[in-house]
């Protein structure tokens, strides 16, 4: 078929010179590193850049590594708690900022809720390190609590944004209609508002989970000795000889993220 005959006369980005090349280059930049990482996770040799044949040995090694096991469990517990708490708080904040008459200062409140997106993370990390040190000295209380609190705080905006978007897109007369049909405010929330905002809540929770699982800067500053998470463990490994075990762990993390995202798509498409 003659390509030229298909060319439309009006402007179309697709037919601009170099469009295909630029697009391909972008995709290559995005995915080449990840593909390389995944491929070398199956390397039989012990270097991350010299291919010596296919093997699952680094997955086995990571699986059996007690430090990795410990860090994985801590990461998951932390991410689950942080995403749960931040989603609950973000849901309340989203309801509070969309179900009221707009007033002067509402924008300021948006900014305050989204503060973790704007303040450099390293600043928050240092601030938390200092504050938590003071609290630890004063009370003597140790534990995962500090990490959970820190993660919950910076996960809030990530959970808040999709929930608020969902609420803003919701027809307010639906809640009025529920009240008109004898639903008390609580029943209106349970039977109408909450079911309709579920996709937003799930999206927010999953985003928060992934963000928490991935965090390194704040975690590195806040964690006590022996409180390694997967990212801080991996960072620690960089100071020694790196083996494809790191690739294997990264590949598993990647798989988990993909699963979470696909799960969300399935859920949200069923709901809509």
């Amino acid at each position, binding site marked *: 078929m003659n390509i030229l005959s298909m060319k439309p006369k009006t402007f179309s980005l697709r037919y601009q010179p170099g469009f295909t090349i630029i697009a391909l280059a972008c995709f290559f930049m995005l995915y080449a590193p990840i593909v390389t990482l995944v491929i070398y996770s199956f390397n039989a040799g012990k270097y991350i850049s010299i291919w010596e044949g296919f093997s699952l040995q680094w997955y086995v090694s990571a699986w059996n590594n007690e430090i990795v096991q410990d860090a994985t469990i801590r990461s998951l517990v932390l991410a689950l708690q942080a995403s749960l708490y931040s989603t609950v708080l973000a849901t309340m904040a989203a309801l509070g900022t969309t179900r009221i008459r707009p007033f002067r200062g509402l924008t300021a409140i948006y900014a305050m809720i989204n503060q973790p997106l704007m303040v450099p993370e390293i600043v928050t990390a240092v601030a938390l390190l200092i504050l938590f040190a003071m609290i630890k000295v004063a009370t003597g209380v140790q534990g995962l609590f500090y990490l959970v609190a820190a993660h919950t705080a910076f996960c809030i905006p990530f959970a808040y944004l999709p929930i608020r978007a969902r609420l803003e897109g919701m*027809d307010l*007369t*639906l809640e*009025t*209609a*529920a*009240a*008109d*049909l*004898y*639903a*008390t405010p609580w*029943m209106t929330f349970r*039977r*109408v508002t909450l*079911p*309709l905002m579920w996709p937003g809540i799930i999206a927010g929770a999953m985003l928060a989970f992934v963000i928490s699982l991935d965090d390194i800067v704040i975690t590195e500053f806040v964690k006590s000795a022996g409180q390694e998470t997967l990212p801080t463990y991996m960072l620690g490994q960089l100071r020694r000889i790196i083996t494809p075990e790191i690739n294997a762990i990264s590949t598993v993390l990647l798989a988990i993220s993909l699963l979470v995202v696909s799960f969300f798509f399935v859920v949200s498409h069923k*709901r809509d």
Partner: protein
Amino acid sequence: MQDNVNDAPANAHAPGVDIIAQNVVKIFGEGAGQVRALDDVSVTIHENEFFTLLGPSGCGKTTLLRLIAGFDHPTSGTIRLEGQDISHLPPYKRPVNTVFQNYALFPHMTVAQNIGFGLEMLGRSNSDVADVVDKMLALVRMGELRDRRTDQISGGQQQRVALARALAPRPKVLLLDEPLSALDYKLRKDMQIELKRLQHETGITFIFVTHDQEEALTMSDRIAVMSRGQILQIGSPRQIYDHPAERFVADFIGDTNFLIADVTSSAGGKARLLLSSGREVNADLPEGMTPSGRVTAVVRPEHATLVTPGEGELDGMLENVVYLGTDTHYHLKLSDNAPFVVRSQNQRNEDEVFAVGETVGIALESDSLQVLRD
């Protein structure tokens, strides 16, 4: 055509009084930016009545509806339902249901779940709810679509579901907020008849809000014409159309000719008017009005006919003739330069008798003039 409906006494079925609004004022906003949406509104709506709030957008009709539903509360004044003051009850404690302009069907529920929602919230048993839902689906002829989601049905069907949902809990009063405005012409005509049928079959008081005067005249037992937060006139469609008391009412409903005239005598609800042409005619007066001096009177275009000059009550110059199939509209200019329209029903094989530019006489039917209050 609608005479049998419109002439029925408003409270023929039951003597009870359903809704009384008394000196209701609703102010939105504060300070300089405040808006008086309702300005001292008092109205009594009878049981089992099809009552229409008619007016242009911003006249306060929807605000009054929202106060009756409980979505807003009056700044002052009271709203009573069967004697009980409900002004400050929340909507979920009022035996009043609403059909919303955009229907507001719950998108995460099926047609049947939508219809059953109110009953479920009232704590009825599952079998009770299922029973009523079946009856309602039959009433609005939607049986086959019970398990559809609300976004899988057409606008007209959504309208029926919204009606069924609001009727299912058997409210004392059903509020309808311009529910037909989103439908196309044909469907709107069908739904007008459907609504009348539902009101008749259920015996529930309907309060209907619209800006469409034709819709109001067709469907209502009584109409309240509203403007700028006030009720200007309440009456049957016939009273409103034939005896408008205010300029706004006369102008808003139907086509009207305004005549300036001098009162020569007035008594017993009737007046003798001296027209600009120098001839005298009889006119009806608004209730309780005994004017003297200069007044404005109205006459509908269909109550005037063209005659040879000098034989009618008025004379005018024919400026334009508009043929409309069933009718012809003659646009005239009176001797005092006021415009005047005469509507005449067309006959077949009729010859054009009057030519543009000609001076013609206008004969007014006896008792066709109505004096306005302003």
